[in-house]
């Protein structure tokens, strides 16, 4: 370990996106009392500027890859990928939120500040090379998200969501922390690469058992964060109760970041004991897909339906992790990006459609949307078809790469069962299409307003992204493949 603890300029450059996000968040908190609540646009503009600056910084930092702050952080293609992804999710969230906040008469400054803090936490997670950093990043991200889930504090559903999320989340984080303590106790390190080396070389049978236990404990923590079975119970209630744009954010950003650390920890640090954790991830993946898809079949509330769908999709990514090869990592990266796009699109439609007080959140309320607002419905259809996994959409290639990786790793049965799950999933997505296009419009269509500019931008951009990933997947996959070597 280097003795020199004074950070260099390069260290700061590599950490710049996080710094910018924190600065922007703090700036908003300082300016709120000065400007007052009626300057809503100022806050969203600052947030957007901060996010775009962070995006540029993240891309720029990729030109200077390497470790920084005494090996605490690592900037590599993998980190950049997830930084860009979560910041991108943040931009879409801001675009979809402004109208919602105005509609619900909610204060906007804290909302944007919390959003920025949450994203900075996810960026730390993406770059963390060390268990304590992972924990800190996870907590920054989670605490901000807990508050966001209950942001409309007069709303009962919001309160329930936040409380559940907070209590269960804290409990899961405790497991994670306990796992970190075990692995530190058995290897004397919290650095992922060092843990790996110790497990490869010095780890006797005794130490491997300890490491296995640590892996199990940390698995609980991560599985909770990505809503993988059997730790998915919180997701439907929280997704349903939280404000729609927050659900949009939660289902894409924190989830992607959690998967990033999941992969980094299990493939780098616990890579030498793959044979111990692979069966667990395998069964969790299958269970997650089955629970998510079958439970979604019964839902009538569209947010809850999408929550179960989100669980199911976490199961697909778990398949890629179970494959524990480089192709699997690349596939998971691609999938998370494609999933973020299509899910953001779907939740943006829900945000738009639900109206004040989230009055219209049942699947049946969408009846006739296809003829009332053809463009919205057509874009929604693209997202739904992508979630089903129909070719020429990003969701298809995502699934394809995942199951290709799984077959590379000889997980034949997992692949067959996973793809058959996809056919089950088609049913509940099709139900939304059926309602939109094949049912007569109901009273929910009468008060429907045109799309707000922010949501319109989100929808078109997400749809374009979904189609581009579906027609020219190489654009993203090549980058994912080149940065999927986590073990150097």
């Amino acid at each position: 370990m280097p003795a020199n603890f004074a950070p260099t300029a390069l260290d700061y450059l590599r950490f710049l996106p996080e710094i910018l996000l924190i600065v922007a968040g703090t700036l908003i908190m300082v300016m709120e009392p000065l400007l007052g609540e009626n300057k809503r646009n100022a806050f969203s503009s600052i947030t957007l500027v901060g996010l775009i600056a962070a995006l540029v910084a993240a891309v720029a930092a990729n030109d200077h890859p390497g470790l920084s702050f005494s090996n605490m952080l690592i900037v590599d293609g993998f980190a950049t990928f997830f930084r860009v992804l979560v910041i991108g999710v943040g931009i879409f969230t801001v675009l979809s939120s402004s109208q919602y906040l105005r509609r619900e008469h909610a204060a906007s400054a804290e909302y944007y500040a919390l959003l920025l803090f949450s994203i900075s936490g996810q960026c730390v997670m993406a770059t963390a090379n060390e268990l304590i950093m992972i924990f800190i990043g996870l907590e920054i991200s989670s605490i901000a998200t807990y508050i966001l889930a209950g942001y409309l504090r007069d709303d009962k559903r919001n309160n329930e969501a936040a409380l559940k999320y907070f209590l269960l989340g804290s409990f899961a984080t405790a497991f994670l922390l306990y796992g970190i303590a075990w692995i530190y106790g058995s290897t004397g390190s919290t650095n992922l690469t060092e843990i790996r080396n110790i497990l490869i070389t010095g780890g006797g049978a005794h130490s491997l058992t300890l490491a296995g236990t640590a892996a199990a404990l940390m698995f609980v923590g991560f599985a909770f964060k990505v809503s993988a079975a059997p730790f998915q119970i919180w997701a439907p209630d929280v997704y349903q109760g939280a404000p729609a744009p927050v659900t949009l954010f939660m289902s894409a950003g924190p989830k992607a970041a959690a998967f990033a650390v999941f992969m980094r920890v299990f493939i780098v640090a616990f890579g030498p004991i793959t044979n111990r954790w692979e069966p667990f991830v395998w069964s969790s993946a299958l269970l997650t897909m089955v629970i998510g898809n079958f439970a979604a079949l019964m839902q009538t509330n569209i947010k809850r339906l999408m929550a179960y769908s989100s669980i199911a999709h976490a199961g697909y990514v778990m398949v890629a992790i179970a494959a524990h090869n480089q192709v699997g990592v690349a596939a998971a990266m691609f999938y998370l990006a494609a999933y973020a796009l299509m899910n953001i699109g779907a939740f943006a439609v829900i945000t738009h459609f639900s109206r004040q007080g989230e009055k219209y959140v049942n699947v049946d309320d969408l009846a006739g949307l296809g003829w009332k607002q053809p463009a919205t419905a057509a874009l929604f259809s693209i997202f739904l078809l992508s979630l089903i996994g129909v070719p020429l959409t990003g969701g298809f290639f995502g699934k394809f790469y995942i199951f290709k990786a799984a077959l590379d790793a000889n997980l034949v049965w997992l692949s067959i069962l996973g793809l058959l799950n996809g056919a089950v999933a088609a049913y509940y997505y099709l139900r939304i299409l059926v309602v939109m296009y094949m049912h007569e419009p109901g009273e929910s269509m009468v008060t429907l307003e045109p799309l707000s500019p922010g949501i319109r931008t989100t929808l078109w951009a997400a749809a374009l992204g979904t189609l581009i990933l579906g027609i020219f997947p190489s654009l993203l996959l090549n980058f994912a493949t080149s940065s999927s070597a986590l073990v150097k």
Partner: protein
Amino acid sequence: MTLLDLVIFLPLAAFLLILFLPKEHEEGIRRFSLVASLAIFVASLGLIGPYWFGNPGKFVFETDFQWVSSPNIRYHVAVDGISLWLVLLTTLLTPLCVLVSWKSVQKRIKEFFAFLLLLEFGLIGVFCSFDLFLFFVFWEVSLVPMYFLIGIWGHERRIYAAVKFFLYTMAGSALMLVGIIYLYNQAGTFDYAKILAGLQNGSVAPSYPEQLLLFLAFFIAFAIKVPIFPLHTWLPDAHVEAPTAGSVMLASVMLKMGTYGLLRFCVPMFPKAALNCSGWIITLAIIGIVYGALVALVQPNMKKLVAYSSVSHLGFVVLGIFSFTQQGFDGAVYQMLSHGVSTGALFIMVGFLYERRHSLEIDAYGGVATPAPRLAIVFMITMLASIGLPMLNNFVGEFLVLQGTALINMWWTAFAAVGVILSACYMLWLYQRVCFGKASGEVSGFKDLNLREYSISIPLILLMLWMGTFTQSFIPSISQSTAVILGPVDAKRDVHVRNAMHGALHAQQSPLRAKESADAR
């Protein structure tokens, strides 16, 4: 850029253009769709050129370039003697479907024609793809427009039928996707020709259990689409509930995706597994032939009757394929085309009747021949073609299939021939109940065929006659391509079976092939 690329992408271009047309211009949208689909048809006629006037190699109009770099997915399209005719069938039926829907589709006109053209894009692509992945993409893409066509413009139970149709196909294709990826991991390519060559020369050598599972993965996906008994239950629902154009495309073209897949992928890639399973599959095919015909016999609903007759007719195609004889293969392909023309025409006739009476129940009709004699004549020719009357198209296909099967096992032929007899029963009975007798109040006011309806039915009738009398326009190109597929499969057969069969072949060479070999000499 070859002519084929143009034929594949013109429908997509037309689809995108329709999306930008203002939806109030209903007449304009109809005209545009008609002109576009006719233009596509004319363009596709050019694909015949090398087969009638030239000396084609294995594939023509080949385009092959990389689409996705990792994994190596290629845009590899071409036609051979099998694909060619299926593409033409698709491009011929699309303008006819536009005409059929001219009056009968009254709501959401823009979306209807857009989906019809998107469907054409998917279907043409399926028949021309020589990259497994590309094939799968088109296979799935064709599913979406058909789902909407049934679900939005269908009859009473359209939503149930649409969802059932989608889920059945989806479940099958999930298995096929596993098979495709598994093959890729072994062969390192999705390219059909390379995988086939690898499998034949042994550089790609899955063990026999693997072959069997791969065969089944593909087979189930295709069997659902054909459909082979007992996977057929989605078909009556989808056919009955679909609008006329949807039924036509579904019966005439989409079902052929399944039989085409069997012939193109299942059989040549896994010949040993195919041979070993052929007994079971033929049994299912024969059950399908007889069962489909028997169920058709008792249907009170015209569309359902035609739908079940499709189950029966498609059984012949499967029978022909799994007889692994030259005649069987040729007959299967010919039957695919014939069924496409005659069943398409039958659905169109039912559509004509429905437009006049707004009922699909046979009981609602009777005596149609009195007020609308020309309609009755056209219906009669179509019906006779479907039965398999000599000089009309279906006869050729069924005859060849039965001849091919007879070389292997006389019993199969005997059972399958029952289906031919039954088809005469249900069709003639249908015709009798609909067209003869005394015209009741509603029926007596029927108008006869109008110009639009003539222009739909005349081309189909002419084609039925042409395919029934002048088979030499089609058979040589088909034979050439099926022989390529048959060769390696035949080589895998037990020696004594092969010898016995070839002996029989010499003894009873069909006049058709005798003429061909005379030509060759």
